[in-house]
């Protein structure tokens, strides 16, 4: 049933692995292999619900089997084989289980199939398990699904999070999240969203949607929209894992490299974003000696390649900006003119008022606070950032630098009115009291 599991290191000398070792191996396989196992099982099950059920069963069965026989050398292949057999059995046993509207699976192009690393178990036609992870993530992030549904499906199907965990991460009630996931799955089957990697002509747009979802997961974890913890570490780790997966599976896509670089370069500063009391520290006040230099080196190394050839994409440009920050000896001695130039290029490929706001902050550093303030004024008049808390926060900071205390205080109050995150509120309140106590 389960192939030929090899004894794990703990099984040497005839003794089975300890229960701790097995559950650790299962937790590890859940994190590393879920996407591969689910993606390969969905192809056989023809239905995401059945696939999820079979994969969950396979993980449950692993606990018994691995305790008895040892942890297999390739847990992913073991789990995939077990889950796919369950799917085949379920469909054979009960024809009713055959979905009325099966997942629409396009046949593989030749040579697309590849075995997971180390799966050397010849089992007839199951010996080569195709890597369907890209199909899975492109299906989850199909533009016919709302962005919030794309995010929920990606966490559920690609990362294997439960609905409860996803609901908690996004601060919505669990039934709301469950309904969102169900609706999205129903649309995939009813509208026949095909389980495939998009054709080259549509790939740039479709990839952008996938990268956007992964980046959104990162930023949600990085700065939780509300609540007490500035960093929701699990979402951050999931986003980094997804970015690494996309980079590995699409080595020719510059924007996939750009996204990974951007996330790594931002995350290298994770430990310094708050002080010992959990209070938010801006880039300016962060202890640069505590930035993770190994992570910065990994991210920086990706940037030149991501920028190369043709007009660079928005993730590559943001990564280039993050790299300049990471390499600067101090906030003041950052290459601000170069950062402004990169923001100019970014605005050309991604005309977003948020980008324009970030550019205004860089202009303030390159040319003085008054120049930055003028640009923020234009953005205020534009109106699209009316509910965006970082606009009054940035404005307040520039007014503070100019010594315009009263105007700064009002801008800090405006920012506080828009901010739920406890760490950010604390920071703004501290700055507000500084400017209200400042000498007139």
């Amino acid at each position, binding site marked *: 049933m389960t192939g030929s599991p090899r004894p794990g290191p703990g099984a040497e000398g005839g003794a089975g692995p300890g229960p701790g070792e097995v559950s650790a191996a299962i937790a590890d396989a859940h994190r590393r292999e879920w996407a591969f196992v689910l993606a390969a099982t969905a192809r056989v099950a023809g239905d995401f619900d059945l696939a999820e059920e079979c994969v969950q069963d396979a993980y449950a069965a692993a606990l018994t089997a691995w305790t008895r026989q040892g942890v297999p050398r390739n847990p992913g292949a073991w789990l995939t084989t077990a889950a796919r057999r369950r799917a085949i059995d379920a469909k054979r046993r009960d024809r009713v289980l055959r979905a009325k509207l099966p997942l629409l699976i396009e046949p593989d192009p030749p040579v697309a199939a590849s075995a997971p690393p180390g799966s050397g178990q010849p089992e007839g036609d199951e010996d080569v398990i195709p890597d369907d992870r890209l199909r899975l993530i492109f299906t989850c992030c*199909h533009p*016919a699904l709302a962005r919030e549904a794309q995010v929920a499906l990606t966490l559920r199907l690609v990362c294997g999070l439960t609905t409860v965990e996803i609901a908690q991460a996004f601060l919505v009630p669990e039934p709301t999240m469950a309904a969102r996931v169900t609706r999205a799955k129903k649309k995939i089957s*009813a*509208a*026949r969203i095909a389980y495939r990697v998009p054709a080259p002509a*549509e790939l740039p747009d479709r990839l952008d949607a996938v990268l956007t979802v992964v980046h959104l997961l990162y930023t949600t974890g990085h700065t939780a929209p509300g609540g007490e913890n500035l960093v929701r570490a699990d979402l951050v780790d999931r986003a980094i894992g997804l970015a690494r997966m996309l980079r590995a599976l699409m080595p020719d896509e510059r924007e996939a490299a750009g996204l990974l670089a951007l996330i790594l370069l931002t995350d290298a500063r994770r430990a310094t974003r708050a002080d010992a009391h959990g209070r938010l520290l801006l880039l300016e006040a962060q202890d640069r000696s505590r930035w993770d230099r190994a992570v910065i080196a990994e991210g920086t190394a990706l940037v030149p390649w991501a920028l190369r050839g043709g007009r660079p994409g928005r993730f590559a440009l943001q990564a280039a900006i993050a790299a300049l920050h990471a390499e600067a000896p101090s906030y003041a001695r950052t290459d601000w003119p170069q950062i402004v130039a990169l923001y100019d290029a970014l605005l050309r490929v991604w005309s977003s008022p948020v980008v324009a706001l970030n550019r205004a902050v860089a202009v303030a550093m390159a040319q003085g606070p008054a120049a930055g303030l003028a640009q923020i004024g234009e953005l205020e008049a534009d109106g699209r950032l009316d509910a965006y808390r970082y606009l009054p926060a940035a404005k307040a900071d520039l007014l503070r630098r100019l010594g315009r205390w009263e105007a700064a205080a009002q801008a800090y109050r405006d920012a506080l009115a828009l901010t739920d995150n406890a760490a950010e509120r604390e920071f703004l309140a501290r700055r507000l009291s500084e400017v209200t106590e400042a000498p007139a």
Partner: protein
Amino acid sequence: MISMAEYMILIFEDESGYATATEDVLRQVMEAHNRFSEQVAEKGGKVVEGRALQPTATATTIRGDVVTDGPFIETKEAIGGYYLVEARDLDHALEIGKLCPALFGGVEVRPIMVFG
């Protein structure tokens, strides 16, 4: 061989666009619709049928037993016509939907429900 599925392309447009359009524009729209079926066939799909509707001013609504003048929902952009098409999957249907003329609005693509 992948089987085909049916999708309805509902054309939502601002009727006032047609009311004020020049003869030239109206002729171009007609030509675009005439071309549409051929373009769908070139894409590997098929138009099963397509019709234009009289303007919403001609609509009559029935709720329960009550008959009232006007469309079911008053909106600026109303259904002005439809195409029933065959496509391989949603991406194919959307590719077809993008070709559908809708000068004064847009289209909604809906899968036809299959029973049984």
